């Protein structure tokens, strides 16, 4: 089970982070100040620390710094308000950690926590993936469904790979835009919907199953028939 420590001073945010992460099946512990958070992180082992950068008394970056100084390698996901995004926070990515700007989609937070937790085990995503009748070879850019090869455009292929890799999990529009097009903003129109529905119809032409479920308000979830 993934163990997560959440350090956040806003009680409401803390509450929904706690609830949401538990729903994902993580073991969650909470701290509401930098100092408490530091003591807990120094005492026990966590897979990921989710931490607000603006904390009363002691800010998040100094906690990360001290933990690193004591050779604690726990992965840290820093949460920051958009305006406060400075180079120090950007520098976190270079240190193997990550940041997420507020407000964020919960799906994105889960994806980042997941990625940081997996970091230790280091298994490169395999080139071929199989789900029921669907076979995906990301090296040869080949997709087969029910024994037939699908004709996908490069972006459609990339989208499918992303969905399959995150199968069973909700991915938001923003995450898709970021991964498939490298766009860090939401154009507010239906570009993602259009791309997803095209991919969906290509999949539907070769199978009766609806592989891509739309979760209103949140995004999409890729599901195999066996789930």
């Amino acid at each position, binding site marked *: 089970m993934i163990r997560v420590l959440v350090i956040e001073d806003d009680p409401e945010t803390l509450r929904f982070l706690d609830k949401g992460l538990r729903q994902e099946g993580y073991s969650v512990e909470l701290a509401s100040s930098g100092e408490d958070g530091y003591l807990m992180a120094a005492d026990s082992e966590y897979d990921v620390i989710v931490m607000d950068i603006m904390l009363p008394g002691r800010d998040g970056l100094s906690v990360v710094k001290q933990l690193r100084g004591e050779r604690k390698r726990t992965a840290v996901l820093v949460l920051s308000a*958009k*305006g406060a995004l400075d180079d120090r926070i950007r520098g976190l990515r270079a240190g193997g950690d990550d940041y997420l700007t507020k*407000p964020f989609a919960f799906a994105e937070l889960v994806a980042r926590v997941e990625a940081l937790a997996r970091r230790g085990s280091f298994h490169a995503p395999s080139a071929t993936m199989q789900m029921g009748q669907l076979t995906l070879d990301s090296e040869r850019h080949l997709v087969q469904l029910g024994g037939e090869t699908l004709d996908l455009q490069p*972006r459609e292929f990339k989208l499918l790979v992303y969905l399959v890799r995150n199968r069973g999990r909700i991915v938001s529009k923003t995450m898709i835009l970021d991964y498939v*097009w490298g*766009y*860090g*903003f*939401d*154009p*507010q*129109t*239906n*570009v993602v919907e*259009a*791309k997803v*529905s*095209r991919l969906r119809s290509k999949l539907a032409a070769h199978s009766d199953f609806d592989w891509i479920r739309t979760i*209103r*308000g*949140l995004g999409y979830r890729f599901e195999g028939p066996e789930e």
Partner: protein
Amino acid sequence: MIRTLTGRLVVSYVGLTIALNVLLFFFLGFAMKRSLEQGVSPMLIQLVEAADSFEDAVLEFSSEFGHEGEHLVEESYFRVFEPGGSIAFAQGPEVPLAEGLVEGMARGDMRSDTVGADGGESRLQVVSRRLSDGGAIQAGVLLKHDHALFREFRRYWNVSLFILIVLAAILGWWMAQSATRGVKEVSRTAERILKGGSLSARVPEHQQVQEVKQLTATINGMLERIDGLVTSLRFVTVDAAHDFRSPLTRIRGAAEVALRGDESMEGYREMAVRAIEETSRLEAIVETMLEIVRLDIGREPPQPEEVDLASTLEEVVDLYQDSAESKGIYMTLKKEPGSYHVRADRTVLQRVFANIVDNAVKFTPLGGSIHLDIYRDTDEKLMICVSDSGPGIPEEELSHVFERFYRVDRSRGTPGHGLGLSYVHAAMTAHGGEIRLRNRAEGGTRVELWFRTFVGGSE
């Protein structure tokens, strides 16, 4: 008084005029004296050379002064000495110093001197000549009249000096006035703003003094910038707060309605979905707004790098291709061969293009067309042109489209928060580029994005 520029200029000009005049006065006086003396000498020489012996001289002088008037006699000095040294003829005042001059002169010698006379009151210019018979002859002029002439000269001089001083004072005052007129206008404008006037006040541009012209331009530029930033801030606080109301009302409404009735699970789910959708709208507004302000304040690409406009545009077209196709819109991208590299912030450009293409797709009716062209206009300028076959923009609204939260068809319910073109405008300005928007004669809108080219290596 002396602390004002006017006072200082007037005093300096008057002082300079007086100093120059005093200097000139002494120089001219000296020059006049010299030329007077030099003018007299030839006449005297002519007189003393007229006689060969002292008897001739006595004869000549006596006959001469028999006819001449008193006037000349009074100012003249004539002496004829016998070979023995005694005076044979004398005319004019007693000047012992002058009489002694002939002693020791060899025969045929001639000399010219100026000596004091009348006990220092005046001076005598005298030419002496030793005659061949041993006698001597002297002719001189008393330079008494110097004083009268000088007095006259000084009187005219004083009058002209007075006029010059007045002129200098007027000139100094005028110079100070014309130099400070602009400065005064600047401080008047500043005062007007201080006393609660609008920040849109500007100093009149028509200044004559170059430095003041520069000052005016700088001040006006600064006011322009402050005005822009304040408008920007006002937009964040007032306009944005205003625009937040609708989504907030909808979120609150949905939540209240869900709580009041006996909602099914499905009803609550619906409410949550609505809340998330409205929140994303709010997030987008806040995020775009902050981006616009950041671009306005920075006025330069936030993270500049070398970007290929053509490939960035191709990506955006690819992004929107499916949306366009789902509306049956025919979208083309035509690129003239060449390099389209500029120095820019990649993310900002992606957003700019996405906003423009987004608008085009949104407003073009089913089965319409969108044409994108990218070409090099001149060596320094690149242009991206997006033409659609939509309804165009009403002429009276064209000037408003870059205003924040301005939406052309509020009634039609097309999605969007009215910040897209404001963002594009701010981004293009920050990149030193330009956006132009107009209606095409054949219908639809034409958006032109002008960029300055990237000059490799030089920054």
